């Protein structure tokens, strides 16, 4: 290895370290969901299977003595070309801001880790958007944006999420430059263990924005916070 290459490598390592110190130091890798059984790791259904190729479902079943009486009338059965469904294309979010709080984060699309947890950017100035769920602006379901909180200092604005009052305007800027406006409905502390029951990742209900970070008690043994702080906001025109 030449001196130059070695120097470059050293420099690169230092840069990575610097970036890590600035970004990842306080909120790093997702912890394994401690205490959860393997069964709990395979996340449960968020909704019963439904067939959405059906715009006008047949009228409800009529009690009858024989199945023949329950054959739907031809006019009630949806028929469509068996062609691929068009890909849904909603501009991705690129920034989220909570008015009056200093919370302003770049948004990047994220998926899941191997352990089944949502991926969170290793950078305190970014929030992850759960890209498999609804995007801000979708007709239904919850758009989930999540960011780390700096557990050492709790000095970054996101630490104030837990104190955001109802009515606070939250804006999401999308990649096409359009802005979605939301009004805060509530901010909750949800125990991480009961996250599933809160339908945080709901895909079918009313359109909502969910801005998530960590909060509650720091659990030394689990290297994690006890709760997720979840701000729920509804679209405003």
């Amino acid at each position, binding site marked *: 290895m030449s001196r130059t290459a070695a120097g470059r490598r050293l420099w690169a390592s230092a840069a*990575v*370290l610097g970036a*890590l*110190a600035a970004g*990842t*130091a306080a*909120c*790093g*890798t*997702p*912890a394994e*969901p401690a205490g959860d059984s393997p069964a*709990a790791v*395979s*996340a*449960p*259904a968020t*909704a019963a*299977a439904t*067939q*959405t*190729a*059906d715009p006008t479902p047949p009228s409800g*079943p009529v009690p009858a003595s024989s*199945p*023949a009486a329950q*054959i*739907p009338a*031809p006019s009630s*059965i*949806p*028929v*469509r*070309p*068996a*062609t*691929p469904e*068009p*890909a849904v294309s909603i501009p991705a979010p690129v920034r989220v801001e909570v008015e009056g709080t200093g919370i302003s984060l770049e948004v990047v699309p994220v*998926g*899941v*880790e*191997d352990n*089944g*947890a*949502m991926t969170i950017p*290793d950078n305190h100035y970014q929030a992850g958007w759960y890209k*498999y769920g609804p995007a801000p602006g979708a007709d239904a379901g919850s758009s*989930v944006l*999540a960011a780390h*909180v700096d557990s050492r200092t709790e000095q970054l604005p996101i630490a104030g999420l837990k104190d955001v009052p109802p009515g606070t305007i939250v804006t999401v800027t999308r990649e096409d430059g359009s802005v979605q406006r939301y009004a805060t409905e509530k901010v909750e502390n949800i125990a*991480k263990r009961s996250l*599933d029951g809160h339908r945080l990742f709901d*895909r079918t209900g009313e359109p909502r924005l969910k801005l998530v*970070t*960590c909060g509650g008690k720091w659990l030394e043994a689990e*290297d*994690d*916070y006890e709760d*997720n702080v979840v701000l729920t906001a509804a679209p405003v025109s």
Partner: protein
Amino acid sequence: MRKTVTALAAAAGLTAAVGFMTPAAAADTAQLSVLHGIPDTTVDVYVNGALTLDDFTPGTLAGPLDLPGGSYDLAITAPDAADASAPIIGPVTVDLAAGGNYTAVANLDATGQPTANFYTNDLSMLEAGKAGLTVRHDAAAPAVDVLANGTPVITGLENPDEKSLTVDAGTISASVAAAGTTDPVIGPADLTLAEGTHTFVYAWGSLEDGNLALATQTIHGMESAPNAVPGALATSDEGNGGALAAGAGAALMLLVGAAAVARRKHTAAARS
């Protein structure tokens, strides 16, 4: 016809395994979709003797019909038939279990004769980020391979068989080629496999007549949510540790960082 009977028998076997449903369970109805996969032939479809699909055209998908679990006779007739007494296909008997999801296909068998294939749709939950893909051979054609982005992902599929895969959600370029070859007889066509959905793709038509085509049916709602939104410290570098602990912590974080980058690349590669 023999193969159709096999498929029907398999379906019947499945129903038997599930057992008879009580009336209470019947609140959970079965869902039956019907696909028309015979070229150039408009038909009527009768269920238990009742006209159910009128002037049903090739390449269209009807339903799902919500039906109480039970046994049903399906008959396919000419579009001007007065009743189901002189069917082109059937009557075939299908057993629908409450809570089940099925697709009946009017199609050509491998030799080009009209028949009906009957399938049970797999609605298993999918891991986050995944999509289900099932390919069904309902065409007058020999065994085929299915290619995604030019690479065979299903090989040696024969009428009336089906094969299923779980894939990363995304858009693939899908094509169908004669088994052992890569020269498309259908496609390539872009196919978007949305996360949490299962897409059923039917190859139908006739190789000899040059009208092979793909039909698709997508069923939604099998997604899984992430099981946590983490926010943990990677390592504790507060307290008494001093420079040594901080250094060790930084080294660990460097490793963690590298792993994260590697993981992201892997994900990106898998997605492309």
